[in-house]
């Protein structure tokens, strides 16, 4: 056990880290089915899981909490992987979809669609993805303006400017929207409550495409970490790699935003934690992001139901509250892995 801690992260076996995290995730998933803000307590919920229980409890566990769990798993998966991809391709540990305006771009197009009379539950996922793509291209445009040398501060400043502008405009649009029910107000800060499984099935095709992109791009992206010219020397085309990564990020962030709103901090904290556990090689980091992203969202979601009972807090507030200390702990704990 001690030797595991003494091993540099990049030299630990991925399985030895993945398994405990996956177990923790399983534990959180069960907790998320058992715990809630309403009157159905852990015992009543457990009865339901064991095949008994009242019809009220059955409804709450299977019709409310279970879809919510699936949505949380999916959104966490998307945001964790998207964050890792984006940080790796930008060579910048602060390159997070939530901070760089990608989520905000996605949220803005969704807000426009809502203002035009669409409903959140029937909204085409592609709209959110196009918004995410526009956000990506804006960020890349800024990154290109800085030339060869990567200036992390400028990238984040541009992203912050885009995020605040788009967030303000999104709020403005929704403020004048008469349909802006609690659902939408919650959605703006990120929430996975009140969703149904049908929404999930609509994002699955784009997740599949993103998955294929990630499979294709993982090795080239890992070699891009050795330097742009090294990657060219190994027969890769950096511009093509970047384009595929951007497409995958837009698909993932768009899908996550459509189902859970612009949840911030997940794409920042999850890759950070993954790197601290298994080192900076993207092929290893991505494996860890698979359970870590959902773990963070679901933990935050469970807390969002418990903190302000009998009402709920928006998930986005919770991810920030859970995320910020984690980030601080990582920053303080050790020398940061470079990208």
């Amino acid at each position, binding site marked *: 056990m001690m030797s595991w801690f003494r091993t540099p992260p990049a030299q630990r076996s991925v399985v030895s880290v993945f398994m405990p995290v996956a177990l923790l995730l399983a534990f959180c998933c069960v907790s998320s089915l058992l715990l809630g803000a309403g009157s159905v307590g852990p015992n009543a919920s457990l009865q339901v899981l064991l095949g008994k229980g009242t019809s009220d409890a059955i409804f709450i566990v299977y019709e409310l909490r279970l879809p919510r769990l699936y949505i949380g798993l999916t959104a966490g998966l998307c945001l964790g992987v998207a964050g890792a991809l984006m940080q790796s391709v930008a060579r910048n540990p602060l390159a997070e979809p939530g901070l760089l305006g990608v989520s905000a771009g996605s949220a803005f197009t969704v807000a426009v669609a809502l203002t035009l009379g669409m409903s959140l539950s029937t909204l085409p996922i592609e709209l959110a993805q196009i918004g995410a793509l526009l956000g990506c291209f804006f960020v890349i445009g800024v990154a290109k303006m800085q030339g060869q040398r990567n200036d992390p501060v400028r990238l984040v400043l541009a992203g912050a400017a885009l995020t605040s502008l788009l967030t303000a405009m999104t709020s403005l649009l929704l403020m004048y929207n008469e349909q802006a029910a609690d659902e939408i107000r919650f959605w703006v800060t990120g929430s996975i409550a009140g969703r149904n499984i049908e929404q999930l099935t609509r994002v699955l095709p784009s997740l599949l495409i993103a998955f294929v992109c990630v499979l294709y791009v993982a090795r080239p992206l890992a070699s891009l970490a050795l330097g742009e010219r090294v990657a060219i020397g*190994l*027969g*890769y085309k950096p511009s093509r790699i970047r384009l595929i990564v951007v497409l995958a990020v837009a698909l993932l962030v768009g899908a996550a935003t459509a189902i859970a709103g612009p949840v911030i901090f997940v794409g920042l904290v999850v890759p950070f934690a993954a790197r601290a556990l298994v080192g900076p090689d993207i092929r290893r980091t991505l494996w860890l992001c698979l359970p870590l992203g959902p773990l963070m969202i679901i933990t935050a979601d469970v807390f969002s139901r418990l903190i302000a009972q009998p009402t709920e807090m928006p998930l986005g507030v919770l991810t920030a509250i859970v995320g910020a200390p984690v980030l601080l702990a990582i920053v303080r704990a050790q020398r940061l892995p470079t990208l």
Partner: protein
Amino acid sequence: MNPTLNVTLSAKDLTLQHGNTTIVESLNLTLPEGKVTAIVGPNGCGKSTLLNGLSRIHHPSHGGVLLDGKDIHKQASRDVARRLALLPQDTIAPDGITVSELIRFGRHPHQSALKQWQMSDQEAIDYALKAADLSALKDRLLDTLSGGQRQRAWIAMSIAQETPLLLLDEPTSALDLGHQIEVFELIKALSEEGKTVAMVVHDLPSACRYADHIVAMKSGKIISEGCPKDVMTKELVLELYGIECDLMPDPMTGSPILINIKRVQSE
């Protein structure tokens, strides 16, 4: 194991530009097969740009680079990477990477999503470790090695690529004298096994000692080319660097070395 297949690399009427500035102008060059070519010249003469052009990183604005007689930019980059390896100056070593993990990247051009890891890959890596004398260090973290060992690990990555051609951009520029010699001797040994090597070098005596062929560049053009003993003259050194000196053969190797160096006031 040895790259026996001979592959030619040449520049035909090659012009390379950064924006509107011409860096390399109408340059013709053929790398002698199985030899070490050193590209020398003052800062800003275009030698690194030429190497980038030869290795398909920099796209020509006129003329072209021919690999095996065909335009290098019209060939699939992966196919090129199986014949031409490149070690740039701006390499980045990720945190926590070991020597053998780094070398493994050299196998990427030979692998694909479906054909991931084969016996030939392990053989190539073992060979690269042995050639670069890194077998004992293969599980060490790259950050814990000396500068020379680290550079040898990068070169070993190129060796694992199993290409007949190897291009190196200032492979010794950040190293002290001892480590420089360590790296130059490795490069020399690689050419003796049949590799065609081209490298950008700053240090003239090292270039003369370790290269079979010198390409002297100034203002984007080749002003002299040939074997070190023929090329290296007082006049050339004066023209390249604006310094006066005397040349004498190294008592041990016979290659030219510079003595009595004086700077000439520029006019």
